[in-house]
């Protein structure tokens, strides 16, 4: 395969629920060489691990089927290679599902390179002394309720999977920016000593990992920050050159907006110390970084810097943490807020009388206090929606919150309306530990082909 000097990497998903059509538009009209689908939130792998326990074929991102049905014909026709973490808790299962979609679409036997090794559940199970990053306590107490433990792998192993030459690379947990850096390392042979290039590629990946959040989504404000045609918002791509030059663009003819302002918001998003954004590939420093508007909807990225990667992988540990129950009911008109507050007291008293206890409990007056706290200086709204939520060990206790809230129709203050059905969801919580790199054994397996 001849090496190129420039590649274009598109961003096709920033979450498993992201819009799908803009990815097809990017593949069809964006002139991209690679299409990356980033579909894993912090706890998604823990959730998918439970699916795999129920059915060993499952455990990959459920939206994989619909997503690939939409883009595979175009990607295969144009030779666009796909990189995705939709393998979630079962990358082999994800690869097999992708291959089946290709067969069903009449695209033949599509080999898929699979990245394995992020699942470190059995390794951390034997390391109860590992310290939780959140509170410094030992992992030990979580081990009995452990649902999953996955290391954020880096671009090195994804790049090695791309070296296999398959149309698709399927992974489980990989750091989001690393999915985008991997094609650059694969194409240009960047070394892990070349911090300037790793920095540029990592910054590009971070800008792309939330798709439309860099192209005008999560940004607009009427009269202040105008964005055109948000209903047809386009997804972004990065043009990466072998020397580390990066420019960000978006699907030609799409809606949205891509400029220095949108790029700056997305660059700082989910970052703590701007001198030390830690990925498995490097420690990125954006304090000297510069954005330049090169052309409409095209921004150049320069002077990202980095220090060497750390000798640990961050591992997300998922564990069962009881149930969250919720109930809601509305109050409007004269004394709406006073009646809602009274109902909240009655429901809580009722839950006490029934003997339920909660590890955490919350009362919201939606329209007044639910987003930014209960500030008595705020004016009272015409109507409020009362919401009560609590976390409990017992499912029954969680369910009782919605039950007793709904009962306010019959047993509460006058003039309520529109209670919802009691809601209960099981809680998969996550915490993090650092695991020495040498304990994580990665492996690449090719499904299909010769």
């Amino acid at each position, binding site marked *: 395969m001849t090496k190129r000097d420039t590649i274009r990497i598109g961003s096709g998903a920033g979450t498993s629920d992201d819009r799908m059509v803009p990815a097809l538009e990017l593949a069809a009209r964006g002139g991209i060489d690679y299409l990356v689908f980033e579909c894993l939130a912090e706890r998604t792998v823990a959730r998918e691990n439970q699916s795999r326990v129920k059915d060993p074929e499952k455990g990959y991102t459920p939206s994989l089927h619909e997503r690939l049905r939409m883009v595979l014909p175009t990607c295969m026709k144009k030779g666009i290679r796909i990189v995705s973490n939709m393998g979630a808790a079962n990358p082999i299962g994800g690869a097999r599902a992708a291959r089946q979609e290709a067969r069903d679409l009449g695209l033949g036997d599509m080999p898929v390179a699979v990245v394995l090794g992020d699942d470190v559940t059995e390794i951390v199970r034997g390391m109860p002394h590992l310290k939780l990053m959140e509170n410094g306590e030992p992992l030990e107490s979580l081990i009995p309720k452990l649902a999953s433990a996955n290391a954020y792998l880096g671009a090195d192993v994804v790049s090695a999977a791309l070296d296999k030459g398959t149309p698709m690379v399927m992974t489980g947990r990989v750091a989001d920016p690393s999915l985008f850096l991997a094609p650059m390392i694969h194409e240009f042979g960047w070394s892990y000593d070349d911090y300037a290039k790793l920095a540029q590629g990592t910054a590009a990946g971070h800008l792309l990992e939330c798709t439309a959040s860099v192209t005008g989504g999560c940004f607009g404000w009427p009269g202040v920050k105008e964005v055109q045609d948000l209903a047809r918002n386009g997804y972004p791509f990065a043009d990466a050159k072998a020397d580390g030059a990066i420019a960000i663009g978006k699907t030609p003819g799409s809606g949205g907006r891509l400029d220095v302002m949108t790029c700056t918001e997305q660059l700082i998003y989910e970052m703590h110390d701007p001198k030390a954004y830690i990925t498995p590939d490097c420690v990125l420093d*954006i304090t000297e970084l510069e954005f330049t508007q090169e052309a409409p909807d095209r921004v150049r990225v320069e002077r990202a810097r980095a220090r060497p990667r750390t000798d640990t992988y961050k591992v997300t540990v998922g564990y069962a943490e009881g149930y969250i129950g919720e109930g809601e009911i509305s109050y409007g008109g004269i004394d709406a807020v006073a009646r809602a507050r009274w109902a909240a007291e009655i429901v809580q008293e009722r839950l006490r009388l029934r003997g339920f206890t909660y590890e955490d409990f919350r009362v919201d007056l939606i329209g007044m206090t639910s987003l930014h706290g209960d500030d008595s200086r705020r004016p009272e709204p015409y109507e409020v929606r009362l919401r009560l939520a609590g976390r409990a060990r017992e499912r029954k206790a969680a369910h009782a919150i919605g039950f007793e809230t709904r009962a306010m129709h019959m047993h509460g203050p006058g003039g309520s309306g529109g209670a919802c059905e009691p809601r209960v969801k099981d809680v998969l919580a996550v915490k993090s530990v650092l695991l020495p790199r040498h304990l994580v054994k990665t492996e690449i397996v090719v499904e299909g082909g010769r």
Partner: protein
Amino acid sequence: MNVRVFDLAHSRTGDKGNTSNISVICYQEKDWEFLKRELTEERVAEAFRLIAKGPVKRHEIRNLKAFNFVIENALGGGVTISLAQDIHGKSLCNVMLAIELPNYA
């Protein structure tokens, strides 16, 4: 005169675990020094007192005419166990934008 952060800057909120990070990005270069002087960690902690226990740490990103405020213990224990409706705290940038600052010339 008094001025709101909203008048000088734009903002976005991110989340990691139980920590919220909120950017403050000046529309105009000239306002960065003013915000550096007036939009202190103490003022931000006060504005977020009903929401976050803190502490609040401010990072300067002069080159991007921006700041990054990192607010700990801000998300009801974190996205996976929070009882809030806005579990990611994505709306919290609005609290930052509403902060009023004195002495704007």
